[in-house]
């Protein structure tokens, strides 16, 4: 008995718990300072740079990396690739938490957070792109919540409302795909208003298309990346169906990501040609643009292609990490690095340590909630009590893993 107690004490002081504890502690301090001293007390934001790292990372990256929800559910329910069914719930949970944390981060970032519902319920600016983003994110967050809630009902053992929502799966998926298509692209469209502030290599009339297409690659890569991490740390929570389908999901999504990335590379180069921006490639910003385009778009596309051909899961994992980093880099470049590029260095923005700490705090909160939900609720496994009610008759016709993935 005493040995058990000492073991428990040991397990509490793991490196993970210590790091998480420090981040949460710092995050709570910054939260207190933010809501007592205002934005000026914790951020380096100014009139020149009213949008900082909380928009670049928490919002732009958060939304792009949560795209796994709509890509996975569209693949499974709209395109009928039912062999990816076991990946839907983890992807929906990741997306739901991602969007919920985007909204949480917005509460820190806007001057008067209690007025966040105003654009939707009080004073709609229907001609504004930002209104469309706000409305879509609001509606999509509700949609993701409804898509996720059957897992909670199964956990609680509540059958009736769970069955009603499961019957709405296809409608919810289509609604989610439409909303995602709209706001993923609109986040790029936000920057169309600033052609004189954004460097010509990143500014393009096709920014909405770039944001949307890159979000698909980000979503597919995040599902692979998150699946790899889950396999490592939550393996004991996965049932045979999930484990059996996992390899097919990884190979199929890697193939999809390779094709999307190479298409994204092609439209980025066509975008350069349409604006005749070749001359900028031979400047400092051009070198940085080439790092992004060649190192974080073309390289992962090639790595994915080779890995799919060789069925090399380790290489797929690295390609997924590179793609995720590439999307983060792109969003940072558009919203921070190449934004206000003509201002003197003294007027440029660099985040304060408290802004960075708060972003880490929000990511950590997301990881903790994901771990809690996937530990206690049927995310990586199916609840035995509800198996006969699963959508699309998957259990009457069990699906074997398909090594070829997309395209067959």
């Amino acid at each position, binding site marked *: 008995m005493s040995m058990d107690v000492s073991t428990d004490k040991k397990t509490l002081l793991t490196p993970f718990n210590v790091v998480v504890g420090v981040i949460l502690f710092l995050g709570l301090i910054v939260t207190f300072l933010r809501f007592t001293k205002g934005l000026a007390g914790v951020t380096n934001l100014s009139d020149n740079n009213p949008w900082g790292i909380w928009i670049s990372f928490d919002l732009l990256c958060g939304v792009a990396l949560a795209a796994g929800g709509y890509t996975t559910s569209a693949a499974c329910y709209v395109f009928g690739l039912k062999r990816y069914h076991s990946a839907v719930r983890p992807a929906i949970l990741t997306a739901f938490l991602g969007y919920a944390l985007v909204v949480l981060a917005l509460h820190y970032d806007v001057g008067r957070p209690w007025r966040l519902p105003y654009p939707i319920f009080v004073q709609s600016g229907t001609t504004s792109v930002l209104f469309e983003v706000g409305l879509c994110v609001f509606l999509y967050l509700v949609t993701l919540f409804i898509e996720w809630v059957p897992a909670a009902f199964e956990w609680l053992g509540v059958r009736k409302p769970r069955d009603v929502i499961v019957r709405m799966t296809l409608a919810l998926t289509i609604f989610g795909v439409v909303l995602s298509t709209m706001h993923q692209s609109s986040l790029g469209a936000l920057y169309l208003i600033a052609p004189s502030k954004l460097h010509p290599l990143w500014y393009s009339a096709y920014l909405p298309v770039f944001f949307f297409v890159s979000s698909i690659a980000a979503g597919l890569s995040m599902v692979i990346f998150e699946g790899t991490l889950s396999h490592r740390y939550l393996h004991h929570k996965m049932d045979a169906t999930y484990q059996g389908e996992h390899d097919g999901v990884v190979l199929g999504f890697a193939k999809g990501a*390779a*094709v999307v990335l190479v298409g994204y590379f092609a439209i980025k180069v066509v975008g350069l040609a349409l604006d*005749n921006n070749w001359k900028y490639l031979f400047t400092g910003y051009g070198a940085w643009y080439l790092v992004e385009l060649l190192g974080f778009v073309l390289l992962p*596309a090639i790595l994915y292609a080779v890995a799919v*051909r060789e069925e090399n899961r380790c290489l797929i994992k690295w390609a997924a990490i590179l793609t995720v980093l590439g999307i983060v880099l792109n969003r940072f470049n558009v919203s921070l690095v190449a934004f206000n590029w003509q201002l003197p260095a003294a007027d440029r923005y660099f985040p304060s340590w408290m802004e960075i700490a708060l972003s880490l705090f929000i990511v950590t909160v997301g990881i903790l909630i994901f771990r809690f939900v996937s530990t206690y609720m049927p995310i990586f496994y199916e609840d035995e009590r509800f198996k006969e009610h699963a959508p699309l008759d998957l259990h009457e016709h069990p699906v074997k893993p398909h090594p*070829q993935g997309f395209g067959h």
Partner: protein
Amino acid sequence: MDNVFYTLQDFLLFTKGAAYYLMGAALLGILGFWLFITGRDEETFIK
């Protein structure tokens, strides 16, 4: 690349011409890319 354009017509002719060439190249490139990715799948099917 450092062409001087005196009219919008000149600019569009140049940039759209370049874009058309690139789209043709992209079409062929993506086709080759797809054949590369799926090459082994066909071998599996033949077996």
